[in-house]
Every structure is written in C-alpha cells, then in structure tokens.
C-alpha cells in the first residue's frame, strides 16, 4: 500500500508539472505578442500593457515566467481580470455554487448508473436491458450544447416543471434541472461500464461459490458481485470530473448560474485572458488532485493492489 501511494504521488507530481507547463506554454509561449493574446482583439492601453508585463513577468525568461506563474498559483494569488476585478475573490464567490451543482449531478448520476446498470446486467438480453441500453445511447448522442438548451426550453419554459434559470437564488430546487442535465453527461458511460462489469463478474467463479453457499440472489449480487464490479466504475470518476467541468461550462451559462463555469464562459467570450488562465489553471489542479484521490480509493476497494 505504501509503495503504491508513493509511486502514485511521484507520478502525479510529474503529471502536475507537465500539465500546468503545457497549459502555461499554450498560453504564453512562442507568441508574437502575448499581451495582445491575453487581451483578445481589444486594443491594449499602455498602462494595461505595463500591468500585464509585470504580472506575468513577460520581460523575463520563459522558465522564470513559468516559475512566477506556478508560485502565484500555489499561493492563491491569481491576479486581476482585464476589468480590474480580483480573480481569487471571483473564484471564492463562484465555487460553492459549482460545487453544489456538481455534487448533485455526481450523486444523481452514480445512484442511477449503479442501480440501472446492475438491473440491466442481471436481465441482460431482456426488454428492460435493451430499453436501458437504447436510452444510454440516446444520452451519449446528446452533447451538452444540445441537451442544456433543449431541456431548458422543454422542462423549464414549456412545461414549467423547473425554474428555467437559477441566477442569484441558488437552492436545491433551482439547481435541480441543471444538475439533471449535467448528470446526463456522465451517467450513460457509468451505466454502461457498470453493466459490462457486472455481466463479467456474474460469470466469475466466486459467484458460483457464493451460490453454492446458499446465499440469496440479492446478497450474491449486491454484496459479492457489486463490490468487484465497482472497481472499474470508480476509476471513471476521475475521467468524469473532466467531463463535468466542461459540462458545467455550458450548463451554468445556459441556466445562468453564477458559478465557476459561468465566469469562465464569460471570460472566454470577453476574451479576458488573465481570468481564463487563472480559472483553467485552478481547474486543472482540482482535476489532478481528484484523480489522485480516485487512485487511492481504487486501492482501498481492490485489496490485490493494496498489497502489491
């Protein structure tokens, strides 16, 4: 277990510096005029030019630029937007909403995916299984840019089941429809992986043993098979977080939820370089940390790895 953790940590540190370096290089390196790139197509005043040069140490060498960028990032100093707002404060205000939204989506997706996935696997080939598979196919085919506006139109405006926008009043109720939309971006894959994994495990020898022990089918499935089947599903959570992040970008924009994605989407539209750089860097870090946690969780679930 200890060696496993150390190895994963070392790998993660490498990935961490690699990924942040790539993001940083994409934003600053080899650019004719990085300041113009940060400001988009707007004209840049001399004072802004000076401020940006100082902020990103653009008059120094490339590696030291990266050094300053990283140390600012790790101390939580994200600088100011082109319009002069403090990016850290903006982030601090926005993240609880995004957290609430994504937690709702994650729980919703996981519960649905695991229950439906197990049912589907048990009755594989039956009408329920085929129905569920067809439904996941439909979900997979619906990119978030299609789903979010259409769901808002149908369930928010036409049918009026949910509030069409959340805006300032963030509550469980106003976030419900956005959370459902966000959940659909990951639920189909999770469900399919659960199903495949349960199908494979149902054929495993230890299932035969469990049945020979006179255990009820319910116990065989939900205790013996499920624990084994969840191992590949857990690894999905890390990947899913990336999907959720991009999903939140669109969902928060569509439903007017002033969270991280909403601000980032605004920053992209307004070509506010510093804001995009700051937010994306933080999200990359969150993504990497969550993936490390998932790796450790994986070890906790699978004893064969723990004692490697």
């Amino acid at each position: 277990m200890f060696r496993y953790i150390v190895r994963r940590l070392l790998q993660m540190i490498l990935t961490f510096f690699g990924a942040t370096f790539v993001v940083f290089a994409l934003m600053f390196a080899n650019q004719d005029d990085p300041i113009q790139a940060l400001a988009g197509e707007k004209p840049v005043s001399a004072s802004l030019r000076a401020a940006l040069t100082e902020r990103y140490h653009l008059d120094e060498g490339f590696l030291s630029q990266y050094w300053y960028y990283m140390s600012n990032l790790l101390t939580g100093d994200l600088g100011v937007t082109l319009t002069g707002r403090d990016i850290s404060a903006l982030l601090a205000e926005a993240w609880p909403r995004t957290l609430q939204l994504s937690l709702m989506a994650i729980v919703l997706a996981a519960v649905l995916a695991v229950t439906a996935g197990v049912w589907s696997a048990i009755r594989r080939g039956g009408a329920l299984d085929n129905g569920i598979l067809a439904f996941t196919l439909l979900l997979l085919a619906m990119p978030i840019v299609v789903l979010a506006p259409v769901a808002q139109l149908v369930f928010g405006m036409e049918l009026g089941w949910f509030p069409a926008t959340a805006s300032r009043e963030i509550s469980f109720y106003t976030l419900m429809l956005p959370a459902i939309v966000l959940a659909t971006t990951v639920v189909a894959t999770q469900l399919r992986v659960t199903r495949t994994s349960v199908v494979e495990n149902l054929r495993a020898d230890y299932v035969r043993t469990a049945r020979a022990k006179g255990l009820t089918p319910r116990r065989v499935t939900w205790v013996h098979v499920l624990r084994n089947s969840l191992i590949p599903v857990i690894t999905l959570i890390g990947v899913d977080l990336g999907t959720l992040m991009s999903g939140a970008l669109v969902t928060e924009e569509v439903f007017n939820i002033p969270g991280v994605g909403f601000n980032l989407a605004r920053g992209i539209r307004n070509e506010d370089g510093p804001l995009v750089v700051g937010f994306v860097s933080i999200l990359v870090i969150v993504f990497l940390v969550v993936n490390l946690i998932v790796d450790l969780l994986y070890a906790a679930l699978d004893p064969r790895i723990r004692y490697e």
Partner: protein
Amino acid sequence: MTDIQASMDVLPGLDPRAPLLQINDLHVEFRTRDGVAKAVNGASFRLSPGETLAILGESGCGKSVTAQAIMGILESPPGHITRGEVRYRGVDLLKLPEHERRKVRANKIAMIFQDALSALNPVYTVGFQLAELFRAHRGMSRADAKNRAIGLLDQVRIPAARARINDYPHQFSGGMRQRVMIAMALALDPEVLIADEPTTALDVTVQAQIMSLLAELQRQRNMGLILITHDMGVVADVADRISVMYAGRVIEEAPVYDIYARPAHPYTRALLESIPRLDLKGHQLTAIRGLPPVLTDIPSGCAFNPRCRYAKDPCLQDPPPPAYAIAPHRTARCHFFREVLGE
C-alpha cells in the same frame, strides 16, 4: 443447540432411513445459439454416509455439470435439467422451491471447487467469507461467527488462524487457499461433500496433503464424499466406488478394486491403459484414439463406438446399451462386457 434446531427444520418430509443421496436418470442440456448440447444423458448413482464415490471422466463428459445440477447452481439459461431426480434422504431436491433449496446448499450438501483463487471472492477477507455462512444460515452475531471461522481454519490446519482470518485470498498459497475452501464447505457440517477436481490446480506434494486432509475430515464426520476427477491415481487411494462417465452417461460403476483389476467397459480399460505405470516401464503407452464426442452431436447407439476397438454392429444401433448388472454392485453399459472382462 441452535445448530441442531436449524438442521431439524431445514426440510419437511426427510426420511432418515432413505439413502443419503440418490441420483436417478438425470438429464441436463445446454441450449445455445448453435444448438442443444446434451451434457448429461441419464446419469444415475447413489451415495451412502461415510462413502467416497469417485466420478471419473475426461473434460466434457458431464461430471462437473452433474455436480452443479445436484447443488442446484447450474447456470440457467443456458443450462436446463430436463429429466431425472436428485433425492436427498428421500426428498427430490429438483421439486423444491428455490428458497427451500437454498437451505440445503452448504447446510446439507456442500461443494469444493477446482481453482480456489478464482472461487474465492478477491475483495473480501477469508474471515468475512467464512463468517458469512454462519450469519446467513444461522443468524449468528458478527463476533460469534468470527470465532467459528477461526475454529474452522484451525480444523483445516491453517497456521495462525486468528491472524490470517483478516487476510485476502490472494495472500494465501495455493494449498492454503484450498484448505480455506474446504473449511468453507465444512462450516455447516454438511452430510454430503462434492469435491470438483479439488487438487488439479495444485503441486503434487500439496495434492497429497489436501487429499489426506479431505479423507480424514470425511472419516471424522461420516460424510458422503463425491470426488470428481479425471485423475485415476487420486481415485485409487481414497475412493470406495467409482462411476466412470462418458458423454453424459455413467458407463461403468464398480467398487474401486474391481475396476482396477478387471474393467468391464472398453472406455475404462482404455483409460487404465493410458496411465503411465512404473511396473510396466519400457512398455508403450496406449492413447485412446479419436476425440470425445461433440455434445451437440452424440453418436447414436453407444456414444463410445467410434473410438472403441470392440465395437460391432449392435453398438451403432439405438437404444444405447443398458446398464448390465455384471456382478453385485457392479454395472457396465457395454454389450460386449464379457469380451472386455476377458471371460
């Protein structure tokens, strides 16, 4: 006390004087996309307390399927029991509802599988998997069940049982894992134990240890043991009687000594001749010619006829040879058993 209580009301209609286990004319088939595979075609045999019956045959002869049908753990679909009886103390298990059937498993009839590494659940500790039996069947508390589990590991002579109870299957050696399997099967004091190739996956030295442990535990408890194997060497040491299966039928049944001394079926004879023997060093081994039959397309008449050196016209005709009683407690399904016996 609770244990006795529990076993008393397991099944209504049990007759203590009836044979321990009696299989009559069992038929199992697998319905697949490419046709119906007839895995078991009228297997019959009988087991008494304290007796060891070896079921012998090549892979695909239906011996494992028979065992799974007795346990009621046949995967269905594709497996279907189409005919026959599995009588335990007079009660036909095949007619019982599933929830009654479940009480028989592990309680009355238990099973050991070939590859203990894959047969044990990799993500639960050995202790959990043992204690689970007491909790599910006896409703014991966690602590009691754990103590019983430790006692079981002691009985199958796993050193430091108290510590190893928290280990996972992959942390045990092959032989130790098979001991865990045995402990699991014996947990609820079953009267019948089915061991499906219990030593095939093990080293030769460990094989002997496991077999003698099994034999010893069987003696202590006066269990009926069904030993499924393709290894004639293993059989000779421990079995009382042997049933040889071919293409889903018991083609010869006899006390172990008789089979080795004078096989009555050409297939049994061929099997014996294909074992390397020290006293016949230098002689050429005879392999059985041809392949085992494809179960979707079993030859008519005697299923062994395409590979048999005694085969004559009647062997090709349906119905297949009946079980000729050739001596007390001895049957063979061969029209020409006299010729084979060398009379």
